[in-house]
């Protein structure tokens, strides 16, 4: 792999950039791999990356039915934070956040991780107490957060209206090292690094069946033919239910549309990410200058990647209330993704009833921030059969009632 650097760009400039090589190869599938990962989203690619990097397993294929990064990884609003309430969540999200800090250098691909800080506004007494609790929990979990005053909120976000009139800002939970990153670059950077380790990323190839013998996985059927494997990782977000069905088990998941929108770009006016759960919306400003906005999920199950407009209305209303000046901006584009949501709003990283088949799903509305941590832990689980990062996220928790409930802390979990 030729390294990227300012110097390399300058050198290529002299020959009209005609010397750049492919970021990742476009291989035909081999007959067999030690590990097959289904789904080249962030989580699938990160899993492959850490299988190679941490466990020396490089005979790996990542199979993607569309284009890599084209699922929720390429549709999300890129909020990264780790101020979760429950210990096991905080552990995996903080692991992820800390890996984001060095991801550009690790991958030699600028993913533009911007630790610009994330504020979660408290707009009711109840929320104040909730975030104070989270701040206490975070302190013990090694996650650096702080409950800040309305005045501090105003200093950090001059365009905010803290006075209400309906829901005045009473404070906020501030994570200074939270932020955003460039979503596509995360997928592309991992893909390039995986390809460089000799792994095959096979795009436009849909997994159509899962083969097993005596309760053990032997391979997958795909639109490009059968592929054998020793272990199989299913990492397909909103389509997890389909894949599980192919393998013969069911998952406690629902798939719903989550929407987002951006405004036309304007000059920098907001340097942090703000989430307002009472009014239900959140906003940040992209490096291009667009205000990136999101809200809640549709209330019905759905596989089309578009949602209903009334949700957009609700979200925009909430944000105009919080940031009155955006009323004079225009919505440029709205879109949706299908997110896989569990009852306790926590992911599933688990072995399954089929030996050799592992599942990584349920990241729902908030899994972008978890990508490196999830890949790190899930690769360990797949390679060794156990990972402390994933231990609490097994499928058996639903049978045992051992939920990791994050809806407690955040109505909007992005």
């Amino acid at each position, binding site marked *: 792999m030729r390294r990227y650097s300012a110097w390399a760009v300058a050198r290529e400039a002299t020959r009209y950039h005609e010397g750049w090589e492919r970021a990742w190869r476009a291989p035909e599938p081999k007959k067999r791999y030690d590990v097959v990962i289904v789904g080249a989203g962030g989580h699938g690619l990160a899993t492959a990356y850490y299988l190679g990097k941490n466990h020396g397993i490089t005979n790996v294929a990542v199979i993607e039915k569309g284009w890599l990064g084209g699922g929720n990884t390429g549709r999300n609003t890129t909020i990264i934070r780790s101020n979760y309430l429950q210990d096991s969540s905080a552990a995996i999200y903080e692991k992820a956040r800390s890996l984001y800090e060095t991801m*550009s250098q690790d991958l030699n691909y600028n993913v533009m991780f911007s630790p610009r800080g994330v504020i979660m506004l408290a707009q009711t007494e109840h929320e104040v107490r909730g975030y104070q609790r989270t701040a206490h929990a975070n302190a013990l979990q090694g996650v650096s957060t702080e409950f800040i005053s309305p005045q501090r909120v105003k200093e950090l976000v001059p365009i905010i209206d803290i006075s209400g009139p309906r829901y005045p800002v009473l404070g906020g939970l501030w994570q200074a090292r939270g932020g955003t990153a460039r979503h596509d670059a995360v997928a592309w950077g991992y893909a390039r690094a995986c390809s460089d380790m000799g792994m095959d990323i096979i795009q436009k190839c849909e997994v159509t069946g899962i083969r097993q013998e005596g309760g053990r996985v032997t391979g997958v059927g795909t639109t490009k033919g059968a592929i054998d494997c020793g272990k199989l990782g299913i990492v397909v977000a909103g389509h997890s239910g389909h894949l599980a069905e192919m393998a013969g088990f069911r998952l406690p998941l629902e798939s719903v549309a989550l929407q987002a929108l951006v405004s036309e770009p304007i000059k920098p006016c907001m340097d942090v990410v703000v989430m307002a759960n009472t009014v239900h919306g959140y906003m940040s400003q992209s490096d291009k200058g667009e205000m990136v906005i999101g809200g809640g999920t549709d209330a019905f199950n759905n596989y089309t990647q578009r949602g209903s407009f009334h949700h957009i209305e609700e979200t925009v209303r909430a944000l105009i209330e919080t940031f009155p000046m955006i009323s004079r901006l225009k919505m440029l*584009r709205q879109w949706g993704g299908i997110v896989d949501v569990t009852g306790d709003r926590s992911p599933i990283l688990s072995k399954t009833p089929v030996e050799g088949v592992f599942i990584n799903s349920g990241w729902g509305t908030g899994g972008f921030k978890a990508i490196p941590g999830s890949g790190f832990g899930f690769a360990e689980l797949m390679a060794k059969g156990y990972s402390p990062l994933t231990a609490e996220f097994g499928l058996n928790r639903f049978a045992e009632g051992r939920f990791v409930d994050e809806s407690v802390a955040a109505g909007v979990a992005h």
Partner: protein
Amino acid sequence: MSTRLSTGGRLIDRTKPMSYTFNGKRMKGFAGDTLASALLAGGQMMMGRSFKYHRPRGVVASGAEEPNALVGLGQGAAFEPNQRATTTELFDGLSATSQNHWPSLEFDVGAINNRLARFFPAGFYYKTFMFPRVAWKKLYEPIVRQSAGLGAVPKERDGDTYEHFYGFFDLVVVGGGISGLIAARAAGRAGLRVLLMEQTAHWGGRAPVDAAADGATVNDAPVDKLVEEIVADLATMPNVTTRLRMMAAGVYDHGYVLGYERLTDHAPEAPGPRHRLWRIRAGQIVTATGAIERPLSFAGNDIPGVMLASATRDYIVNYGVSPGDRVVVVTNNDDAYRTAIAVKKAGLDVPIIVDARAAGGGALAQAARDLGIRVENGRAIAKVHGKKQVEGVSICAQAGEGGVLEEIACDAVAMSGGWSPVVHLWSHCGGKLTWDEAQAHFRPDVHNSPKGDAGETFVTPAGAANGAMQLGDVIADAGEMAGRAIAALGGTVRAEPVTASAPDEVPMQPVWLMPQGAGPKLRMKAWLDYQNDVKVSDVQLAAREGYESVEHTKRYTTLGMATDQGKLSNINGLAILSDALGQPIPQTGTTTFRPPYTPISMGAIAGTARGAAFQPLRRTPMHSWHEENNAHWEPVGQWRRPYCYPRTGESHAEAVSREINQTRSSVGLLDASTLGKIIVKGPDAGRFLDMLYTNMMSTLKPGKCRYGLMCSENGFLIDDGVVARLDEETFLCHTTTGGAESIHAHMEEWLQTEWWDWKVYTANVTEQWAQIAVVGPKARAVLQTLSDDDLSAETLPFMAWKEVTLAGIKARVFRISFSGELSFEVAVPAGQGMALWLALLDAGAEHGIMPYGTEALHVMRAEKGFIMIGDETDGTVIPQDLNLHWALSKKKDDYLGKRAQQRSHMADPNRWKLVGLETLDGSVLPDGAYAVAEGVNENGQKRTQGRVTSTYHSPTLNRGIAMGLVLHGPDRMGEVLEFPGTDGTVSKARIVDPVFYDKDGEKQNV
């Protein structure tokens, strides 16, 4: 130089001059101008700077597809960034400023990026800015952000208003060009309810402009005539609604159309809302949205003065404005000849028509030649000269690599690369496209249309939007397609012969790069996406590096992601990508079309919901009294509840103490009207409540009350409250304030999906009743002064209720207590709440009666060790954790949550359980603090063994009291736990009984 012609301009009114400012400079225009046409008329060709390289840019288009001419419009509370000059109608006093430059449009420091452009190809930022690590956030990102961003930031709160409309129509026709007009008239005559909308301020679309150049006629009359005639017809049809300045922003499932009407953008002084958002349900939708011309990709195609041929024609014909004195026309199709003819007819010079087709054009080409215009076939533009203004072009052969054959001086270039139907609305809801080889464009695949839930087609494209490009075809297609939509609605169409006579055109020939063999130097100067500065070389670079999916290319290069959303660039970019990948264009496919068609204001989306009207405000019947008596409000859902009622000079904490002391020592009043009240009625009501509550409710006797718990299917406690049995078949279930709607929905969900055959009705009557808690040792005395009915403990014991007359009002009195005091909750019809409230204040005056707020309520319940949903519970707590076993009926086979509570983790003895906590020093424990245990877990996190759930200063005990959940808590009475704060301090607290006050309940039971 661009200028105003002495004659012409079908849309302007030369008798109505208007003045406006651009970058502070006074300028003149006419009524009917757009800002773009007025600027051109004033010789202002350069209108902005591009996003990435800050290149000087002029207007290229004349409509919604414009990528370059974006301005900041208005000032102060009316300022709006990124307005397209091409769709901004001129008004007197308009003020506009150009964007994305510093210090000025003419001289922009950011243009240094242009010099360095070769170092900034597509995606360069993914490869650089990585070292040192901290520099991205601190150095590079701020620079990138500052140089990007386009428009200025609005500084003030929006001074305008907005509103929403609902519309219900059989047929919605989008687009008021010839096709849309024909479709709307046919539907109107078929008796359907029709809405016709047109995004501009004029009916007729392109056809009248084209006719002005080529002399086409319809039914032997000018095209304008037909437009007028149909518009007049429509005006006489009561079943047809027409709207100008209204755009269909999006098409959604089930025939939902979003309409965006701009009411006063063109007349800001006019009263009323600025924009109106229409939420429309349509039986059928006809998209007669026309087509958009494509630029050609040649070096320097972005220099101010290079324009779409159609736009050049529009400015001349519609506005009497010439983009230049010498206009070179370059094309791959016949249509652009109309522009050459229009230019010539306007008395301007066309030094050459460069036709890339070896065989050249048809009848229109001949007409141009007849006017004396030089036409060269098989030629191309190698390069445009000029920096801030076109100065000339180098001509070459289209087939070669760009060897210059000739230099031609000119000050404008009109280009046409062919036309693409506007398929956005068709595509929003799943309509598929097909590639039309002959016209080199995607058009709707009518066999793969957006479908409703019964599999029926609900969107039909018509006219140019359906790929019909010549006037005769357009008219025929519009009739045919409108007929289909009308038939689908059960209407019949009367055939109306409309015959067009227009010059025949010979086929266009796709030309994606000019010249065909252009080398890297030229490709680096051939723009695809003007606003985002994406060039042919960038798309080729993306393909080379493996970003082969059209979505990858788009994201890697930012092609089509600008405010015009690729209206001009997408197809050209796709073609370049396909060529680089050596595959046919349809195999490459398009990116997804997403709403809105063009950007719509956030203000319109929010409508009237802003400020105080942001959400409905729910008021109890006594709301105004609280307001007048200085309530400090706390938002609770959409209600406002008084937190406390501070008196002059009093802090909130002091007010709360006063309210508690008064209540505990004498009597206080609480407005409890927000508490949820749900009637559950029917022969199976008892059985139903037995399933819903963990307690046995069916055995409750009429006249009695019982405190009950509700759990989710997963066993977690979700709500609590007192149930009163009103009669044999009727129960009144009290819920928490926040739970009223959700618990009602929860009940209905179970009734409708699982127990649909049970005879039970539910009704949420929360707002039908005012409810007042009269609390304290003197409560009975106060009530008794207002009533002749017997309220003694014998006739109305604890946990009973009774109908009585109080102050002449019929009331239900419930003897229940959430404070531990003698307490009556009195419910009266909402309309009489205030009267009762005032009567109670009066009657209690001698006891110093006063109202208390939610904080006093919370403190008093905590003093008594009563749990609060949302404090002691958080969705992870089961009743067993709260030592509420007594409320879990053992006699019932089942209730919601029972099975879940038997799961291994729920039944685990090692759960955290409810206890009281007392700090050793009497201070108040911090909210939400955790009790730490020894060591760290596998992930290096400090271990914990409990947490604070409620914590208050108790004025009654004059010390901090708290409740919490602690591992094995009830077995560890007296043990001291450590609670680290977030500020480094550690609080120590002893585990105690959670009931701090009146442990034996003597006070409430008198």
